[in-house]
């Protein structure tokens, strides 16, 4: 279907354009403004050019946060994607179990992000938490406030707990969209459960799984509230991810210039990833139509 050519359609987009421009463009201008100035106080500012950018790009702690971020996102995806698909495959196809599964899965997604942190704080603390006390009673010292490894394990557990349901819901929706005759044909062809998965379910889920993968990558890349509540970025800087570092810089130390330069670099990284995301999505759409 060809779309109608009509530039008057702009009037329909105008409200969205205005509201997003207000929320996005004006603040971004402020950030750009800060990133090239040194600010001592009201009315006292000096133009410093690309200095903050140079400093930021050379900031060792930023590099660490960036690698930490990639490692975290990568590990999380490695667990969440297969687990989510497995859950979707095990979910019932009809009956009351469908509603029950959907509601249960969606539950963690609707909990405010800092409450997620709180839940896991309560759950994993060695003194009052079920998880923490069980692990400790098994003779393994577990304390996410002291050991970086424990902090990472806790964060990963929390992230997997929080977001695997999203992958599962997407995968489930993809599975339900496969027409029944494919399964019938596979049965007649004598396909094993694995062959059915490998050659029917997985290819048919490709679209939703791509979306799930990219969404999960982006969102885990921007993670802030949950680790902030649970570990506050510590112990040390072991769980200081990009967003946490940025907020520390901007709000904690009020280093506006470096924070702004950091913001712009951060945003550009996300923008680049977002562009890849968009391209891949377009291709997925095209592949299905062909």
């Amino acid at each position, binding site marked *: 279907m060809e779309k109608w050519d009509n530039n008057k359609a*702009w009037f*329909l987009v105008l409200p969205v*354009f205005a509201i*997003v421009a207000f929320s996005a463009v004006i603040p971004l201008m402020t*950030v750009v403004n800060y990133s090239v100035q040194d600010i001592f106080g009201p009315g006292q500012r000096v133009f410093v050019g690309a200095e903050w950018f140079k400093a930021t790009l050379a900031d060792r702690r930023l590099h660490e946060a960036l690698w930490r971020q990639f490692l975290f996102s990568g590990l999380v995806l490695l667990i969440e994607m297969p687990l989510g698909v497995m859950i979707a495959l095990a979910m019932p196809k009809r009956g009351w179990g469908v509603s029950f599964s959907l509601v249960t899965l969606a539950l963690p997604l609707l909990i*405010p992000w800092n409450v997620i942190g709180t839940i896991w704080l309560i759950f994993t603390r060695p003194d009052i938490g079920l998880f923490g*006390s069980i692990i400790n009673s098994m003779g393994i010292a577990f304390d996410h406030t002291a050991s970086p490894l424990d902090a990472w394990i806790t964060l990963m557990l929390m992230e997997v707990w929080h977001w695997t349901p999203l992958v599962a819901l*997407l995968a489930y*929706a993809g599975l339900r969209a496969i027409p029944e005759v494919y399964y019938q044909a596979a049965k007649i062809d004598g396909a094993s459960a694995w062959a059915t998965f490998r050659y029917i379910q997985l290819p048919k889920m490709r679209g939703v799984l791509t979306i799930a993968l990219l969404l999960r990558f982006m969102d885990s890349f921007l993670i802030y509230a949950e680790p902030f509540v649970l570990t506050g970025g510590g112990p040390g800087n072991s769980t200081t991810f990009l967003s946490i570092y940025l907020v520390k810089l901007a709000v904690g130390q009020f280093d506006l210039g470096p924070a702004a330069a950091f913001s712009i670099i951060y945003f550009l990284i996300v923008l680049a990833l977002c562009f890849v995301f968009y391209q891949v999505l377009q291709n997925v759409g095209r592949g299905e139509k062909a």
Partner: protein
Amino acid sequence: MIPKKRTILLAFYFGLLLLPIYWMLNMSLRTNADILSVLTLYPTDPTLVNYIKIFTDASWYSGYINSMIYVAMNTTISLTVALPAAYAFSRYRFVGDKQIFFWLLTNRMAPAAVFLLPFFQLYSTLGLIDTHIAVALAHCLFNVPLAVWILEGFMSGIPREIDETAFIDGYSLPRFFITVFIPLIRAGVGVTAFFCFMFSWVELLFARTLTVTNAKPIGAIMTRTISATGLDWGLMAAAGVLTIVPGALVIWFVRNHMAKGFALGRV
């Protein structure tokens, strides 16, 4: 019938999924002293004292009301502006359409932390700090693009012949849109409202930064209490449990449409 192996595994997973939430519920029914003294799997001496405190203390329950207000405002604004725009993207080709659509999407992916400080300054300048509308507007940053995206998907599923027939029958665009088109995509509108609700409800970085007392969301009140009152775990757990309730109610109402929304993959 003997339950299959995978049903057992699924039940086990759901058990693990609900366990942390159960643990918080367990805590919320106990006093702080009780929590700190013994570890029990269920409240031996259940008490509603934490909930009573929340429902009687205005500094607590106003947090819920504040959250509800800005979430409702945000959902309304997002849907109102996104509906015509999504229609434009799904039906028309115009100068810069693809670029605008992409630019909108980038905002869905924008790191909230980047916008934190500029937002604070912007709303301070406008005198909107500590108002519900400030939070609602801030959440439009990611919810409006999201709404446009989801709605565009649903609208593209409606054949364009319907529009053409209506225009030939003499409908004006606004009348056609309100009386014919929106009823056709009401499932899509429902799904969009659900996701707008969801993302506005769970977001707290902006909500906390842009409010002081009058519009403070419950989530922020919780975190403030952690540091101020020497950690009343029971009270905090009760507040946490109460933040889950609205979400759970909303899921229950949209459970049949949810799978459809996810099927589009536009979240």
